[in-house]
């Protein structure tokens, strides 16, 4: 049996793996190798990494990225914790529609999203005009092209993603648990404190790490908004590899390796936390 299968298996698996190796593994390896090379020199060196971790400019880019990703993810998840819970309270049919809408808006990201926010809150944006006409004090000085504006947009694309990731976790809370707790004398608050929250906490933490990784890698939104002007990690990488004169692909590779590694760590944390949840569900 086994021997006979080889023909079909080889025939189908070969092109598949050739493409995966060619466009996933080789570039990945090339990037790592390149990150250990100094521009124009042949041998290996740690120059690029030394540069990344001593140059204030790159450290600042990393810091900015971490800060903005953390803030936007935190706010996003705080909102989604309530919204996803509210979702579960509707009839199955309505829930399906709500998820569809959330899914749709979660596709609304990158350049189109940046544009929509320019229309809304840009220098001559609709809300900007509105705020000025109505003289709503603190909003008058709002500047979309600032850090604050960027956080607002990041939050926007985190919320639907967070909802979609948290929703199935809430579905894991069985109605019967609540009923059992009620019959045993627990108030709704006691139920959430003793059963509900401990149960979903790993899922929330896991979702947070996905959101964080998502924001860390986000490039298009910020780039569309202000080009290379924001000092963010992905923007720096993009500038280092595609700038014509100032291109320093090796340095870009080192930054990219750093970003990739931090994403892998975030996702590993997610895997680990999710396994905790699953063990409970089993």
């Amino acid at each position: 049996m086994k021997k006979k299968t080889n023909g079909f298996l080889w025939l189908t698996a070969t092109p598949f793996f050739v493409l995966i190796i060619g466009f996933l593994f080789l570039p990945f390896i090339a990037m790592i190798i390149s990150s250990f090379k100094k521009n124009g020199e042949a041998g290996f060196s740690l120059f690029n990494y030394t540069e990344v971790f001593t140059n204030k400019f790159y450290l600042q880019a990393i810091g900015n990225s971490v800060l903005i990703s953390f803030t936007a993810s935190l706010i996003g998840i705080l909102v989604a914790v309530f919204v996803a819970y509210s979702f579960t309270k509707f009839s199955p049919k309505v829930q399906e529609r709500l998820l569809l809408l959330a899914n749709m808006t979660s596709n609304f990201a990158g350049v189109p999203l940046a544009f929509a926010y320019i229309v809304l809150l840009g220098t001559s944006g609709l809300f900007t005009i509105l705020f000025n006409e109505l003289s709503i004090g603190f909003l008058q000085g709002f500047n979309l092209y600032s850090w604050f504006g960027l956080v607002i947009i990041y939050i926007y694309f985190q919320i639907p993603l967070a909802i979609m990731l948290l929703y199935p976790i809430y579905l894991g809370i069985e109605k019967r648990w609540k009923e059992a707790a009620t019959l045993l004398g627990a108030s709704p608050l006691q139920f959430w404190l003793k059963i509900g929250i401990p149960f979903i906490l790993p899922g929330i933490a896991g979702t947070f790490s996905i959101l964080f990784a998502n924001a860390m890698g986000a490039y298009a939104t910020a780039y569309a908004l202000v080009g290379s002007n924001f000092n963010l990690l992905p923007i720096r990488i993009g500038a280092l590899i595609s700038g014509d004169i100032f291109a320093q692909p090796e340095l870009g590779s080192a930054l990219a390796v750093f970003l990739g590694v931090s994403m892998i760590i975030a996702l590993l944390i997610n895997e680990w936390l999710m396994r905790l949840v699953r063990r409970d569900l089993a």
Partner: protein
Amino acid sequence: MKENMRTHKIIVTITFLYLFIPLLATFLYSLSTTWNKTILPEGLTLKWFVDLYNDPRFIDALWRTIQLTGGTMIVSILIMVPAIFAITVYAPKYEKWLQTIVLFPYAMPGVVAAVGLLSIYSKSGIPMVIVLAGSYFVLILPFMYQGVRNSLRTVNAKTLVEAAELLGASRSTAFWKVIVPNITPGIMVSSLLSFSVLFGEFVLANILVGGSFETIQIYLYRRLRESGHLSSAIVVSYFLLLLVLSWIMVRFSRRGTLKLKKKEPIV
């Protein structure tokens, strides 16, 4: 149990208001004559859409995007589906490997992937459009794998194949005549999902090919500061397309398939 449904309705309404306001504003903007000093648009018009669809540059960009994504999709489906099928059914012990490989693209945001691809292919002589298509193959791998894998599981592919082979079918006949017809709806769903991801892809396209192969997203990016109204017409068209795709996806997928799909960060 009596719960306060009103609160939940309010929460959900506010959320979707928040999520849809940028869309609505863009929509209104694409229909307005001028709208930069007043609270409401000064007049309504379809001019921007007419302009957009008469712009040869837009039509070209659209055509390029369709060629690129469509071509990538077709090649990907033809290569991925039989391979995933063969591995899960005939070499199940390597499935674990495949599952791990499939997670890699999640950990590689567009910029990171672009760095690697540039460093290996930028001087190789291979046209960068082909490299872009190759990177799209990897980008949609997780979605396609999930979809194909779930479909194979739902139709009990292994048993089906064994039954077909006992009745005298060859391996490839079993695949084409028995498996493919059964998993087509599932493949359709993940293909549409992949298609909408690729259609909205900007990072790889911008870094790998940029202006030399202007896709819709790059066109939008370049037009952004020239004409706001025209740009909003693009965004609205793009979103309508997403809407149609989502709708078709739901028609194809059985209840609840969509919510289980893991989202790829596409920003």
